């Protein structure tokens, strides 16, 4: 009986990739409106936001007011991300007086 000697390559910790979209002031801070971002499997949205704040410290001033969406729906920081997700990080929408 032959044993399989070659095993599949070990899956690294950076196992999934999401697409980050940034808008308005945040896009200007990052200098890009769309960024690919690698994350460990099972990562939550909060981890991605923390990583973004680490990479773009000027975003930190907006941390309390940013709106988050995953695949075109508003999402809480607790949501678990999946490979291929589109994550939007957005300033408050413009609003206005009635």
């Amino acid at each position, binding site marked *: 009986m032959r044993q399989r000697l070659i095993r599949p390559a070990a899956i690294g910790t950076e196992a999934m990739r999401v697409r980050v979209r940034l808008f*308005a002031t945040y896009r200007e801070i990052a200098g890009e409106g769309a960024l690919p971002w690698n994350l460990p499997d099972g990562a939550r949205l909060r981890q991605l936001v923390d990583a973004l704040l680490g990479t773009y410290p000027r975003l930190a001033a907006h941390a309390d007011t940013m709106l988050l969406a995953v695949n*075109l729906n508003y999402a809480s920081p607790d949501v678990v991300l999946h490979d291929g997700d589109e994550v*939007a990080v957005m*300033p*408050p929408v413009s609003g206005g*007086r009635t």
Partner: protein
Amino acid sequence: MIAIQRSRIDVASVVDGVRRDDAGAVVVFLGSVRADAGVRALEYEVYVPMAEKAFAALVEGAKSKFEVLEMSIVHRVGRVPVGEDSVVIACSAAHRGAAFAACSWAMDEVKRIVPIWKTESERGPDRPWPRRRLGTRKKD
């Protein structure tokens, strides 16, 4: 009808899009760029696929909450000069009460949840150095 477009909004065609023989009322709201001091235009940035999805949900919401028959929402993206419309909402209903209420509700929701941002893209001679201000204006 839902649209996000760079070109001017043809209000008559938006209104015609909601007309029905069983509609006794058509209400249309135009959101226009106002000439605040020195402002010549506003620049609108839109997360288009999410905004389209949100507009579609608002149309369905208007139908279920207010007995609206049809609703159309058209929004501009990019530069909109003073005096032009940046958003048009039209809705039809059997009676005017539902049409007025639904149009007002939908516009409030557009301002509250739809991912659209505006900047004063140009200023006049009273403030010659353009300063981009995003998400800070309290007025339309």
